[in-house]
């Protein structure tokens, strides 16, 4: 069974300790969220898992075959048009250019991009459009494991929901496992099987919450209720420093 396993992971930048003794396992078909305050080492943890940073201490074992990454900002290549930006992920996998473009056009349509947008450069796209392209680029390769670094944080609620629904559909079909970083508890509850709480200075996992209801049955009521519950939780209050001062 494919999985991502993190064991006794520590990480420091110079003398400042960023992560201390992180342990978790992400199984196939699961969505694991890591929530915590900004600047708490979440992104570092994600970069270590995605092999964008070298692991110094501990183990990261990734047996998923295909991974993809969606960043907080769209990070599109400014000199490539929409289709070529999406095709980048396929070209990296050695796909022929023509075929890669065809597939990219196909997926672009499912992500709410229009035919007229295909030849546009990123400078002519709105922020939401760019993030659609970024998502399409990550998902066009049909990854088994998707790393998400707060990709919804700058989007309006409609687009947020639209992109989340695309992910939920893929989760339902067990096509996709996700490691999701966010500071938004509601997002985490809507999408995840398991939520890990990462406290800052140094980053340590202090609590974990599981949600068994299938994602497509989670309505707003469920999400609000669970969020309200979480906000009462002592570990959440102390990690996010929610107590009144």
């Amino acid at each position, binding site marked *: 069974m494919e999985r991502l396993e993190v064991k006794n992971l520590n990480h420091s930048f110079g003398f400042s300790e960023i992560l201390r003794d992180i342990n978790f396992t992400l199984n196939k078909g699961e969505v694991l969220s890591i929530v915590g305050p900004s600047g708490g080492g979440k992104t570092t943890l994600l*970069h270590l898992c*995605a092999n*964008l940073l070298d692991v110094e201490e501990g183990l990261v074992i990734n047996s998923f075959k295909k991974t*993809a*990454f969606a*960043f907080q*900002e769209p*990070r599109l*290549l*400014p*000199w*490539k048009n929409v289709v070529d930006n999406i095709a*980048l*992920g396929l*070209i*990296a996998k050695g796909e022929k250019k023509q075929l890669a473009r065809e597939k990219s056009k196909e997926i672009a349509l499912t992500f709410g991009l229009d035919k007229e947008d295909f030849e546009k*450069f*990123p*400078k002519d796209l709105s922020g939401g459009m760019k993030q659609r392209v970024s998502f399409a680029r990550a998902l066009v*390769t049909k990854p088994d494991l998707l*790393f998400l670094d707060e990709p919804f944080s700058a989007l309006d609620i409609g687009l947020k929901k639209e992109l989340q629904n695309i992910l939920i559909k893929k989760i339902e079909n067990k096509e996709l496992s996700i490691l999701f970083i966010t500071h938004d508890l509601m997002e985490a509850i809507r999408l995840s099987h398991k939520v890990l709480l990462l406290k800052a200075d140094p980053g340590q996992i202090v609590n974990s919450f599981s949600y068994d209801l299938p994602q497509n049955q989670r309505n707003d009521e469920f999400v609000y209720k669970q969020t309200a519950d979480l906000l009462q939780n002592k570990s959440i209050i102390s990690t996010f420093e929610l107590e009144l001062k």
Partner: protein
Amino acid sequence: MKFIIKLLKDFPAYLFSGWGAIASIFLFIACWDMGNQVYGDLVLPSPKETFKTLYLMLHDEAVWLEINTTIYRAFIGFSISFAIGTTLGLLAGFFATASIMSRPIVTILVGMPPIAWIVLAMIWFGMNDETVIFTVVVASFPIIFVGALQGTRTIEGDLKQMVDSFELPFFQKCINLYFPHIFSYVFPALISGLGMSWKIVVMAELLASNSGIGSALSIARSQLDTPTALALVVIMISSLMFIEYIILEPIKREVEAWRD
């Protein structure tokens, strides 16, 4: 191939947008004619006379020979600075120490007046092709070098990380990320380097050679032949404008369409 077709397709529209430019050139010529009426033929020959001289000159094979000599020198000089400038610029960009060390040297090269280089080159190489080509190289090399250096230094970490996350092979990284980024810096530098070469080649010829447009200009000066001098200036300017507006600008529009 697709790029060339697009370039040709957009070309007529681009040319049509040139009416404004042509109007302003005619306005300039009108002012020139006024100057002629005020100062007389010896100081400032009329545009008509200048263009008549130009017409006669262009039918003279000897003049074409001079033009070719100048083009040859500018081209060789520019090619050498292109080759050395981009290579060294890229190398310096990849190593932090090299880029810090090259900064002051570039400042010296840029700051040194070309006329000083001409004097040195005359001492080193004598009065021939090498002197002119050398001057062209030292004058346009720093511009291209700085362009390549900055292009290499400024590759965005974010985009690099994105490309890494897709595990692009090195070759693909080059053609998708490094080359377009560096090119976006080198291309404008090449254009200014080319303009610089063209100006410097004439100056160097005027002082240090007995062939080429520059030396023809020097002869015209010694004979007080103002119409010929002006006709030569017209040749220089129109060839520069041809290169800049007819060849380079349309290419620039296509390759930089993605810019804001």
